[in-house]
């Protein structure tokens, strides 16, 4: 029986790494070949056993708390270093329980800003930041139809220095909204749009302080929609993009 060529790929087969078109042929062979099916069975059993046995260690509550405290302390100390702050926010997100413990002591307004910052960083850290990838606003805007309960306008960007990268649906306080990502030089700026009525009313009372936020951010209400523009780009860039949105709405 000439099985050597199949056997050499058995690991790939059970790991699902064989190209799709080859998979069907492989399946047919394994079903009909006693030797290969027995080998595949052992490999699958071993895979399962390692999967179970490998999940062995859990961090202690004390260590988790210590880490949360360390990370929570970073943003305040390192004001001015945008990337460090972005990283701090990213790690805060990764070490998720911090968020709930930390936010519990803050006002609703700060919670919203913090969540916006988290959404921004988490999205940029993702391997697929946008669900609709297009630089064309006429492609991105219609993509949201039927996904969010409102419509909005996207600005014309010609000669503005900004490039639309795409968009995705997002949620803030269980409210669906639009998240758009723009390129500004080497920086990325997020624009979030939600229905105003779904969010805390006091968002405009106190101007947003970058010192508290760690990012540059602008927020305003227009035509019943709440806009947030946030990023580690310069305040001027964030402001310019905000102005383009204000003019388009």
């Amino acid at each position, binding site marked *: 029986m000439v099985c050597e060529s199949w056997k050499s790929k058995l690991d790939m087969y059970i790991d699902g*790494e064989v190209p799709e078109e080859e998979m069907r042929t492989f399946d047919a062979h394994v079903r009909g070949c006693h030797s290969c099916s027995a080998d595949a069975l052992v490999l699958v*059993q*071993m895979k399962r056993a*390692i999967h179970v046995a*490998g999940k062995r*260690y859990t961090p202690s509550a004390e260590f988790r708390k210590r880490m949360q405290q360390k990370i929570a302390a970073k943003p305040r100390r390192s004001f001015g270093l945008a990337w460090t702050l972005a990283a701090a926010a990213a790690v805060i997100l990764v070490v998720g329980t911090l968020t709930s413990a930390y936010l519990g002591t803050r006002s609703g307004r700060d919670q919203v800003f913090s969540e916006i910052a988290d959404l921004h960083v988490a999205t940029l850290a993702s391997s697929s930041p946008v669900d609709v990838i297009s630089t064309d606003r006429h492609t991105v805007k219609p993509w949201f139809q039927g996904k969010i309960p409102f419509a909005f306008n996207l600005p014309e960007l010609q000669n503005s220095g900004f490039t639309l990268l795409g968009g995705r649906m997002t949620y803030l306080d269980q409210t669906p909204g639009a998240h758009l990502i723009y390129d500004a030089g080497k920086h990325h700026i997020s624009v979030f749009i939600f229905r105003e009525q779904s969010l805390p009313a006091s968002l405009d009372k106190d101007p947003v302080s970058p010192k508290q936020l760690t990012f540059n951010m602008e927020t305003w209400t227009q035509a019943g929609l709440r806009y947030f523009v946030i990023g580690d780009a310069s305040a001027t860039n964030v402001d310019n993009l905000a102005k383009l949105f204000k003019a388009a709405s």
Partner: protein
Amino acid sequence: MPHFERLYNFACWLTHDRQEAEDLVQETYAKALKGFSSFQLGTNFRAWIYKILRNTFLTSRTGLKATAPVPLDLEGEEEALPAVKETPESILLRRSDDQLVRQALEQLPVAYREILLLCEVEEMSYQEISATLAIPMGTVMSRLSRARKALRGGLQEQFAKG
């Protein structure tokens, strides 16, 4: 949260010591925080942070000790698989004896242990493993195959011991 818990689990498997694992995870986050600018948007964040943890481990005292050059026979030509019908390890695995599998895993060289954990526990694709371990895809495949064989060998030994 998943990354934190899983990084800690991975760190424990690498170091075999909870205190060292805590230091390793702590250092990993500190480095990630410091070097976030080196993270390329659109690349894999998980592979990036695991790579930091692994590199930190490799340069630690325990890591240097544990990863003394891999003997040539580990990376050498593949041995022929024994004819498989009912093997000792398949019986062991069917019995789901976690303890024996853990012991066999612990006794593997770090290079084999880490690749098995990344593939089976972290469920990383070959591409992610390649990025995390900074090795070519071909090496991922061959090392994974040898790691599995080594684990089977270890399980057979455990079985022989009774």
